Each structure stands twice: as structure tokens, then as C-alpha cells.
């Protein structure tokens, strides 16, 4: 950890967003992660995305599980709401919070250990329910916090720091997500903010569950030769398939995108996600096409990135379950709790 806290500096030409905040207003406390950890870079990308979207920190909720990645909710948006849940249980807490107050923007931050081992069941159900949140899966192939054991995302043949070879098949979060009905599936890399920041913005604006699997190297336990999640390996095999830009509601900007080369996806807020296909021959709005593209890439060393799949038509959980739009937190206790007598009647029904 650096010798002093990063100061908040006001430059003469500082940029302000629509609600008058500067980028540094989206910072959190100083990171205690290892210097050079990919997670810190993802944190910076999240802070930038919230800044650029002009979302007030007090209108955002950060939730996470356990792990170095999960710790990072403290390192951005000091003034936002948040909860570090127990290991792997973040999706349940997010679901409850979202039901209580759907007016906030929800971001979950987790790791490959937290999400794909102990929390795999939770993640899968959050995806199939299409909870309206962005889920950042910071993927380094190891349990960083507990000193570098292989995670369920470790690739076949990837070696641990001391040479041990992984011989268990990995879970590919994107394939998993596509198979259980997730409506926004993306992969990116902590070292590519040019791709990552727009993806985060699009994910936050997507109505429904958005997953971003971010390769985020662990400098301390998984950045050596032989690792398939190192900086060197990722830069080498990195491949951009689809670039996504979030375009806020504004007619003029939209006009310039109607040029056939790009594919605009209408969002619920009136803005759009503009897809720029860098690979031809596949349709990111077609689940089967995306699925086969992801499976194909598993056969090669290529790391397929970008917004791999998007579906804006499926209703999110709250809509499908007809949750009251005003949020459960606005109901008085008496209304939320029908009382002991009503409870007895109800139990009798089951009896």
C-alpha cells in the first residue's frame, strides 16, 4: 500500500459530469491490494463508467462476496451504498436489495472463486431470474486472497506458481451464462479500459442481468510463465470480437450510427448500445450463434472478448414477478407484514 492516501486534486481544466462531479468524486478508500493487481484496474474502470454516466454515488449499490476482487467495492464510490456479503452469497443479497429499492443502480463485484465455486448456485439463479444488475466477475484463475489455489476458472494445463499443472476442466463463465438465459454476456480484460469502460456503461444501462467476465491478472500468484491468466498471456491471445458503446438518449448522435456497419440495440431508457462487429459471420443478438462462437474459441488459445450476447427483450425479474415498481421499502410495516392472524390462515391453507 502506498505511503500516503491519494489526494483529491482540483485541476484548472478538470472535467465535470452532468451532475457536477469530477472523476475523483467516484474514488473510494485506498486499495490494499498488491501493486499491479488487475482488480485495481477494474475498479478504476468502474469508477470511470459511473462518472461518465453521471450516476450519483448515493444512487448506486455495490455488493460483493469474499475475495480480493470482492474487497474492491471499498475502493470506488465512497458515498455509495454497499454490502460485503458472505462468500458466494452476493446474488441473494442483491436480489433482496433490488426488490426493496429498484430505483438504484446495482453493481455486484466478485471473483472466479466466489462466483464459480462456493457461489456457483447463486450466480446461476441470479442469471436465470434476470435480476437487474451488473455482475463483474474479476477472473484471475486463482483464489488470490487465500494465496493462489486454482479456481474453477483455471484452464487445463495452466500451471500454479510452484509448477503444479491444473488437470480439471474449467468453467467458462460466458458459456455458463449463455446456457442459463443471461441477457447480457461479455468478456473483457483489466488491461483494456477502452473496451471495458464502455462495456460497464452498457451493462449498467441494460435492463436485466449483465455479466462481464473480466480477465484480471493476480500479480502475486498467477502472473508467471505457464499461467494462462497472466498479463503476458492475455495480451498475446487477446481478441476483440464485438465492441459495444453506450449511447445516451439523443437523436442527433443516433443518426450517425445508421450506416449499416454498426448494430444499434434499443435500451429501455431510450438510449442505445451500439455494437461494432469486429468479427464477421456471427450475430451477438442470437444466443445459439454466440454460444457456438464461445465454444469454438475454447478450442483455440484465443481469448474472445467484447459484448458476446445481448437480449433487451426478455423482461427482468421484477417485471416478470410483478414486483411493485415503487419498491418494497416504501410500504409501511403493517402492509408488508399481514400479521399473525393472516399468517395462521395462510398456514392453514397448506395444512
Amino acid at each position, binding site marked *: 500500500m*502506498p505511503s*500516503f492516501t491519494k489526494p483529491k486534486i482540483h485541476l484548472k481544466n478538470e*472535467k465535470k459530469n452532468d451532475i457536477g462531479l469530477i472523476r475523483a468524486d467516484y474514488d473510494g478508500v485506498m486499495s490494499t491490494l498488491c501493486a499491479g*493487481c488487475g482488480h*485495481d484496474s477494474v475498479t*478504476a474502470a468502474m469508477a470511470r463508467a459511473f462518472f461518465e454516466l453521471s450516476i450519483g454515488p448515493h444512487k448506486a449499490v455495490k455488493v460483493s462476496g469474499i475475495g480480493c476482487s470482492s474487497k474492491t467495492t471499498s475502493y470506488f464510490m465512497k458515498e455509495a451504498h454497499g454490502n460485503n456479503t458472505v462468500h458466494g452469497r452476493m446474488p441473494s443479497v442483491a436480489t433482496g436489495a433490488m426488490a426493496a429499492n429498484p430505483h438504484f443502480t446495482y453493481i455486484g463485484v466478485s471473483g472466479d472463486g466466489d462466483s464459480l465455486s462456493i457461489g456457483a448456485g447463486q450466480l446461476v439463479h441470479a442469471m436465470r431470474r434476470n435480476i437487474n444488475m451488473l455482475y463483474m466477475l474479476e477472473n484471475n484463475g486463482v483464489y488470490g486472497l487465500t494465496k493462489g489455489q486454482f479456481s474453477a476458472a483455471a484452464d487445463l494445463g495452466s500451471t500454479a506458481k510452484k509448477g503444479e499443472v491444473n488437470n480439471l476442466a474449467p468453467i467458462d463463465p460466458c458459456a455458463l451464462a449463455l446456457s442459463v438465459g443471461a441477457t447480457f454476456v461479455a468478456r473483457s480484460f483489466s*488491461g483494456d479500459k477502452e473496451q471495458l469502460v464502455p462495456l460497464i456503461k452498457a451493462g449498467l444501462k441494460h435492463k436485466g442481468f449483465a455479466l462481464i467476465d473480466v480477465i484480471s*491478472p493476480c500479480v502475486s500468484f498467477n502472473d508467471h510463465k505457464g499461467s494462462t491468466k497472466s*498479463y503476458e498471456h492475455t495480451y498475446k491471445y487477446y481478441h476483440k470480437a464485438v465492441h459495444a458503446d453506450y449511447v445516451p438518449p439523443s437523436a442527433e448522435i443516433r443518426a450517425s450510427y445508421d450506416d449499416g456497419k454498426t448494430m444499434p440495440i434499443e435500451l429501455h431508457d431510450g438510449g442505445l448500445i451500439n455494437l461494432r462487429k469486429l468479427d464477421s459471420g456471427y450475430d451477438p443478438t442470437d444466443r445459439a450463434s454466440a454460444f457456438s462462437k464461445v465454444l469454438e474459441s475454447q478450442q483455440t488459445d484465443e481469448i474472445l472478448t467484447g459484448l458476446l450476447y445481448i437480449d433487451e427483450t426478455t423482461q427482468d425479474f421484477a417485471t416478470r414477478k410483478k414486483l411493485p415498481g415503487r419498491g418494497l421499502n416504501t410500504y409501511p410495516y403493517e402492509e408488508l407484514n399481514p400479521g399473525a392472524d393472516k399468517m395462521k390462515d395462510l398456514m392453514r391453507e397448506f395444512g
Partner: protein
Amino acid sequence: MKPTDTSDPDYFHKVVDCQWACPAHTPVPAYIRLIAQGRYSDAYMLNRESNVFPGVLGRVCDRPCEPACRRTRVEEEPVAICRLKRVAADHRDDITDRLPKKPAKTNGKKIALIGAGPASFTVANDLAPMGYECTIFEKFDKPGGLMRTNIPAFRLPENVLMEEIGYILDMGVDLKLGTPVNSMKELLKEDYDAVFVGTGAPKGKNLSLPGREEADANIHIGIEWLESVAFEHIDKIGKEVLIIGVGNTAMDCCRTSLRLGADSVKVMARKPRAFFKASPWELEDAEEENVDILVNHSPKAFVHENGKLTGMVFELMEYDVDENGKITDSRVTGEKTIACTDVILAIGQNNAFPWIEKDAGIEFDKWDVPVVDKVTFESSQKGVFFGGDAAFGPLNIIWAVRHGHEAAISIHKYCHGESLTQRRPDQLKLEPTKMGMFEWRYSNAFDDSERREMDHVALTERFSNLGTEVELGFSPEKIATEVQRCLNCDVQTVFDAPKCTECDACIDICPVECLSIVPNAEEPVLRDAVNATNPDQALYVSEDLPYTGRVMIKDEDVCLHCGLCAERCPTAAWDMQEGIITIPHADDQNALDKIFEAAE
């Protein structure tokens, strides 16, 4: 863009904005660090190497360093560089045994220096310890030039000036007071090996308006009047004084008038405040003493009754100013007479060399300014050098010092038959500052304290005695706070591209977001990537990075030198290194041959 060549000494030098802006390139952050450690004598000596008069300059320097100071990029006020210089001078121990001594033997070369101002003294300071026999001729009975005759003692006490002049005289310099040089041709006939002209720009400008001659008794030329006050030929003035002009001389005239019995002093400016020539701090100090500054009054005539001045007529002006702050048009809207007992003209100075004969071999241009080489300071007459205000018109003390150093180098080369233009270039040495993982030998944490204000002697007290110094110097609390405001711009961010793994840690931690890793491109594209909006400040561009071939870029403009990038970098690709810039002096030219040989 091509990778930045950081081996060019100017590259890192420019990053140290104060040092680059200082005509004598005083290593400001280095001496501020010494002050922070309580090493006042060391700070004084380091200062003295470049600027020769730290005690004087710590009070009255024109301080071009301060508007340049990097601190102003992140807040309003620069570091109080000048005040800290005075701290070093005020708190130093007796340093006389650390000064160059009068050499046991001279080198037999005789140098004549005309005028005992800062320019001549700097030349003597550099040459006497090397064995040169330096003789200074001064027309007045006291040395110091305008520092003595024009800068009032309430800004610069006589003992401070005399002590620093004394250091130079003790190096074996012969000072001939009350000895004006009346003929250059005669002087050239004597057996001097070289001549240095440091006679300043001694002629105050006049204002020929109706009534000027009739009311002459109460109309004074600013610099002559201040000189008479300094020599105690004048010790009073009328009750109502008008000062014409709003430069630094005007400020000294108005404040001196108050001390000589004036009740009301008005400074009359032709233009609006944005066009004032006086330094902001001089204006502030005058206004603190209740001097009125009236804008948009253009002098028209002197009013007199029976040969006695009673007032002055002014035209009231109105100006059109464009968005760049330039005056595009002006008009007279009326007229006004302001009563007064005295008028002091402070509208500028000129060079004047009545003692240099037209056929002395020294060429003058059409404004009667001598033709002087900007690098060597030699005139068209071989072996005759000019410096200070005499060279290119009125500047200030620190420029006179710089000229003096340069002229000393030239004189040394001239006396040894060497080419004057083959001068040792500036040199840069980088030294590590890393002490541990997150530990450096400079205080890198950003301190957001505001600039400390100077305490002043109470108004009543200061008017009672012309010589009472107004500024009190910094208290220990102020010293301790002000030193921490300096950003240590000389501790440079040094990048080693092959080590970088492109993890972005440095980019994310940087509090001013001045770093980025991007595909190389033309300068405007790269500048845009880091919002580098100041074209006067460099954009650093690295070699290609190993993994992607992109480049690390950095906007030098806003860097705080906090070292967080280096603390956060897992591979030490960024490092903080102290850049020590050596500015050539007369006594380090001998190593020249070796340098030029090595370069070939």
C-alpha cells in the same frame, strides 16, 4: 511521436518550472529541502552558487519563478519561493569560511569592472577566486548600484546588502568608490586584459507636458528622487503627492513619499489594472499603506501658480478590451484636475553612456543601446563585455546576476585565448531517491496547505523611520508549512519501458490522471488521451512497451511528483530520481576539452 530524449538536460530542467524560469536557474526545490531539514547554511550556500545575493534576493527579487511554479496548476498560489530564500539567509550561521578565499597568488590578468551593481559584483565573484585581479570603479561613494540607490531600505536593509557585497570584496576585489569612469577610450589604454560594463540604465524618463518647466521645483524624476532620498539629500516632500506611472519604481516612490511626510499619495495609471507593470505583491504592499491607485487617468498638463505646482490635469480614458485582454480602442471621456504639491514621474528608464566615445569601437543601435551578443555578452569591441541593465535595458537583479555569470565565462575564455562560443553545456545527473518499498528521501506526500502570508510591521511604526524593514520574515510555523507546499519538481519520474507489464496500476493511482498507455500516434491525438491542454509543457512518450508495442505517455504539465506511480508499480518501471542540473560557471570551463573530446 518519437520517444522522448530525457538525456537532453533541458527536458527534465523544464519540468522544474521555477528553476527553468529563474534567469540564474537557482535549484529551488533542492534548497527548499535543505531548509525543511533545518540546514539553513547549506541552503544559503546552494542558493549563492547561482544567485550570489540570497539575502537581497530573498527580499526583493522580481521572482519570475513564482508565477511559473507548478503549484499554481493545482491551486491559486505558488510556493513562497522568495520568502523561503530569505529564511535560508536569515537563519544561516556564519558562512564566511565556506566562501571562496582570496587566492594566494593572482593569475596576472587584470579586469576592469565599471559600476558597482549586481552585474559587476557577480563577475568579480566568479573571477576573483580564480586569480583574476578585479577592480570595480563606482561613481558614487557607496556600492550596490540601484540596490542601494533606488530600492528603499524599508524593503532592503543596508546591512543585508553590505554583508553580501562584503563577501565578494573579501575575495580580494578592489573597489574604487567615488571614481567615475569618464572615458572609455582612456580606460582601454590602460593595461586591463578585459573590461566589463555594468553601469546600469541610469536615466529616468521625463514627461514633457505644458507647465513642466515652470513647475520644475516640485516635479521629480522617480529614480533620481529615490537616489537623493537614499543619499539623504532629500528628507521631506509636500502633503499631496501624485505618482505618474504604475510600475515597481512608482510603488517605491509612493511608499517613500508616505515616509517623508506626505498625507495623501495617489498613483495615477493611464490604463486599467490588468495592464499595470508593477508586480502584484508590490501593488498589495502599497495598497496596504493606503496609497490610492487611480486608473484611466492620462496626464495632460501641470497646473501652477506663480511657478509653484498646484495640481495636474488628466484626461479620463475609456478602453475597449477584446477577449484576449488586448486594448482595441480608446477614447477620452472628460478631463479632471487633481490638486497636489508634488509630482513624481515613474515612467521608465533608459540606458545612457555619455562616457563612451563614439569612436571607442563600441557599436550602438538606433536607440543608443550597445550591440551586445546574447550568449557571450561581448560588444563589438573585443574584450569589452556588457551585462545587467547596461546590456539590453532595464531588467532586474537576478537577470544582472545571470549576465554576470555568463560574462565571467566569456572573460575567462577571452583571457585564455579560447573561443567564446564553445561553452560548457548544462549537465544533468540523475540520482536515485528510493530508500525502501514506499520510502523516498524526499517528502513525497501531497500537502494541501495554503500559502503562508508574510507578517508586516504595524503601519504607524513603519512610517516613523524610513529604514524600518516592513517584512518580518517567516515564523518557524510558517517555514515548516511552506516548505511542504513545494512539490519537489526536480525529483523526476523516470520510466524504463522494458520493465512495464502494462498493468495500469500507475495510471489508476495518479491523482492528476496524467498517464496513459495508448497506441502511438501524432502529438494532438496523444495529448487528447491525457487531456494535456498546455502546449508549453512537454508530453513524455516512452519507447514501445514489450507486450503490446503501445507507448506510455505522460503530461508533464500537471504531474505532482508525488511518486504514487512509482510506489504502485509492481516492476519499478517508474522510478523517482533527483535530477541535478549543473549550470556552467567560469571555474568549471576547464574540463571543457574533455567534454568536447568525449562528444566527438
